[in-house]
């Protein structure tokens, strides 16, 4: 029997980035907030200290900081007609586990999305006509505008001390920045990071071709920084152990570095670590979330935690799964298009081209997590798609993030997989090669969605989440186009060897890491018919239930998702401050 606890004002599921930002806004006004997180505080553990931090096998290859697949994984299939199978050791993406969530081991890319992204349907229909968006591509406007989000982007960048170079200040293009950037009120809080040698070679090739390369905005701190809450960052050490690792140098902006230490000092804030939320209690009659049920992973005891307001702030997949498990809202049905829970599940369509030259000293181990040089000419709708036969695009970059030797040695095509020649190629090219990447948009498709698996269960006997996902025509055409653009840039370097241009092709492979940027499942919008939450992230079928994170994105862009979900979380924090005083449909 579960023990029933005293009611709390706001209960947040998941102790990652969005929870911290919401709690920051709420507790500043003294509102009572409880965050429930299944994982541990790892700030003083082996993951966060030298020498054990620098262990590629433990943290990267074995995924030591991520979700424990023996407890909960996802099942997968390529189409609604197939049976699913569980990914028994998922490699494609890496949900977090612990204080800070996946945001504690992010790479640091801190993009604002293009000004038109929240109104993408309107943008594409205006530019290309009503027929331009295929019937099986449920792109929709989000119900917010960039202008509404700008103050929250600004606040997030100040809190995180983002390093970068503005490309567009109040509509005026800035030399050296991204000419496609959404207008900002001022420059980034810190100057950009040092580019890598790979970035400089990429930059020169891009300039030769008439593109405008720039250094990507980053949560790796380019210098010493103190944020508006008095929290400090040190300078990035370019250690090459960033994504999939916790920064030991206090130089990567993360929730546990900059946000939770402030919250732990506030009297109206409480966090329960090592407590796994099993479900949301929902009163269907009253259309209200009553509270959450969780298992204390230290004692093994189960608790009911009543709440005035429940916020789902877990990883993309978990937000959707908790709604489906509780039966809140109508599950999406791909045959009729009805229902919205699980809809618009998107990924990112990525590809890369390797380049090699003996007298380049690339030194891949001299790198931060987000020392990227990028061009945005072919990203999203930054170029004219008339006659191309696809929508969307990709940011093209030389993002050299590390030289960790198990997973990051490039060898020329045709190299044997073992033996003396394999060793020779590794020795010859390790320091003299790099990769140029496309990070491509993922637009929704009718048959890409999430639901509960009818067969497989987690360690607690609850159904696993099932992904029905594959690369669809639009993804593959877009990837072919953008990968050919990378190949042109590769050839414009003086590389001696240019590896094959391999665009992303079906079938989707769960065995290969591609990106942790899965989005959707609880899309936001203005119409309860095609969205789970409103433009204020309030559930249409439960006024006191809110959902935040990349799960609310109706589509995915060729940008990393973090900064936008952070801005949405800060806005939600402010919205909730008002809601708690006067509960209503916002």
């Amino acid at each position: 029997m579960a023990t029933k606890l005293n009611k709390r004002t706001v209960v947040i599921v998941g102790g990652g980035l969005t929870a911290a930002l919401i709690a920051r806004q709420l507790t500043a006004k003294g509102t009572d907030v409880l965050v429930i997180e299944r994982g541990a505080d790892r700030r003083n553990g082996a993951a966060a200290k030298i020498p054990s931090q620098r262990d590629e096998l433990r943290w990267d290859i074995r995924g030591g900081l991520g979700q424990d697949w023996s407890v909960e994984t996802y099942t997968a299939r390529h189409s609604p007609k197939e049976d699913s199978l569980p990914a028994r050791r998922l490699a494609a993406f890496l949900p977090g586990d612990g204080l800070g969530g996946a945001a504690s081991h992010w790479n640091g890319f801190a993009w604002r999305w293009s000004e038109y992204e929240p109104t993408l349907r309107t943008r594409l229909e205006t530019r290309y006509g009503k027929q331009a968006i295929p019937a099986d591509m449920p792109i929709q406007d989000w119900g917010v505008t960039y202008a509404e989000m700008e103050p929250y982007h600004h606040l997030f960048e100040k809190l995180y001390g983002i390093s970068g170079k503005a490309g567009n200040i109040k509509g005026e293009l800035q030399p050296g920045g991204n000419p496609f950037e959404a207008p900002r009120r001022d420059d980034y809080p810190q100057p950009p990071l040092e580019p890598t040698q790979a970035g400089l070679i990429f930059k020169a090739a891009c300039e030769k071709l008439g593109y405008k390369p720039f250094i990507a905005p980053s949560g790796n701190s380019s210098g010493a920084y103190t944020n508006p809450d008095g929290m400090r960052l040190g300078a990035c050490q370019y250690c090459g152990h960033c994504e999939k690792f916790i920064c030991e140098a206090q130089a990567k902006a993360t929730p546990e570095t900059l946000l939770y230490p402030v919250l732990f000092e506030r009297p109206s804030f409480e966090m329960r670590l090592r407590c796994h939320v099993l479900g949301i209690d929902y009163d269907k009659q009253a259309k209200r979330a009553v509270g959450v049920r969780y298992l204390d992973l230290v004692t093994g005891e189960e608790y009911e935690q009543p709440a005035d307001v429940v916020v789902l702030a877990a990883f993309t997949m978990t937000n959707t799964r908790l709604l489906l498990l509780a039966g809140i809202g109508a599950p999406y049905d791909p045959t009729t298009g009805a229902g919205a829970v699980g809809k618009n599940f998107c990924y990112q369509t990525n590809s890369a081209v390797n380049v090699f030259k003996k007298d380049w000293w690339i030194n891949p181990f001299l790198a931060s997590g987000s020392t990227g040089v990028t061009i945005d000419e072919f990203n999203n709708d930054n170029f004219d798609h008339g006659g191309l036969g696809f929508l969307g695009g990709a940011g093209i970059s030389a993002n050299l993030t590390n030289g960790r030797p198990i997973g990051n040695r490039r060898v020329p095509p045709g190299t044997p997989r073992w033996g003396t020649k394999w060793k020779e190629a590794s020795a010859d090219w390790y320091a003299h090669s790099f990769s140029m990447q496309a990070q491509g948009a993922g637009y929704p498709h009718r048959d890409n969605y999430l639901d509960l698996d009818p067969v497989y269960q987690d360690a607690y006997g609850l159904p696993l989440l099932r992904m029905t996902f594959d690369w669809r025509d639009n993804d593959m055409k877009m990837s072919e186009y953008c990968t050919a653009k990378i190949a042109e840039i590769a050839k414009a370097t003086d590389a001696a060897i240019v590896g094959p241009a391999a665009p992303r092709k079906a079938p989707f492979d769960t065995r290969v890491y591609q990106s942790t940027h899965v989005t959707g499942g609880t899309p936001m919008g203005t119409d309860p018919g095609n969205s789970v939450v409103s433009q204020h992230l309030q559930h249409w079928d439960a006024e006191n239930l809110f959902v935040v994170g990349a799960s609310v994105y109706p589509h995915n862009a060729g940008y990393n998702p973090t900064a936008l979900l952070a801005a949405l979380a800060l806005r939600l924090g402010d919205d909730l401050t008002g809601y708690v005083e006067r509960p209503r449909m916002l």
Partner: protein
Amino acid sequence: MADGEAAKFARRDVLKQIATVAGTARLSPALAATAGASAVATAAQAEAPAAAAPAAAVPAGYQSLSLDEAAFVEALVNVMCPADHLTPSGVDCGLATYMDRQLAGGFGQGERLYMHGPWKKGKPQFGYQLPLAPEQFFKIGLAAANAACRKRFNKNFDALAPADADAFLTQLASGKVTDPRVPLGAWFNELVYPLFVQACYADPIYGGNHDKVFWRMIGYPGLPATHQRDMVAFRGKPYPGAQDPKSIADFS
């Protein structure tokens, strides 16, 4: 401070000195005497040509592998990593030891692996689908591969001439060696091969990459990787630390 602690710190200092001089100067006999066996081995390795390096400094013996299994694994790593101008043999690099320790440890026992049925075959993109912990799968696959090898060559894998063994592994990797119950292509490509690469390039604390030989081979400097100044000073230039990598043990 307890005597043990003092000794530990003294040893750490000595190791740091050795790490500094290794590869550049001969170790003084006095330093070698205080440094302990593994440190001497480290220094000796740096002095000797790669192919003549001493055996791995991790304790001898296997935790998981039987004698027959060890013979297979040793033959495998010596074919995949022959002694040459770049490294000692796979066994001398500790590669068999690495695999053995991984199989005996959490990975081999199925840590972080979803192990609930039903068990069904499916498309390869959905990955491993057998009801076996990796250690069990490794051994069942090893036995099946050895049986296939006997069918073709009339002897066990460890008795093959290196060229035959190499050709057999190529066939395994391309899925041309089959078994009615065991998916040998996936066994080699998704279990054995990744373990081999990890054995070469993981930190030496796991038993492979003895004396950081693979890190030195490619020029990966290892720890501490505090490169704020290096980032600019050595951008586009050879990085001196790449010649003399440091591992977790050097900072422990």
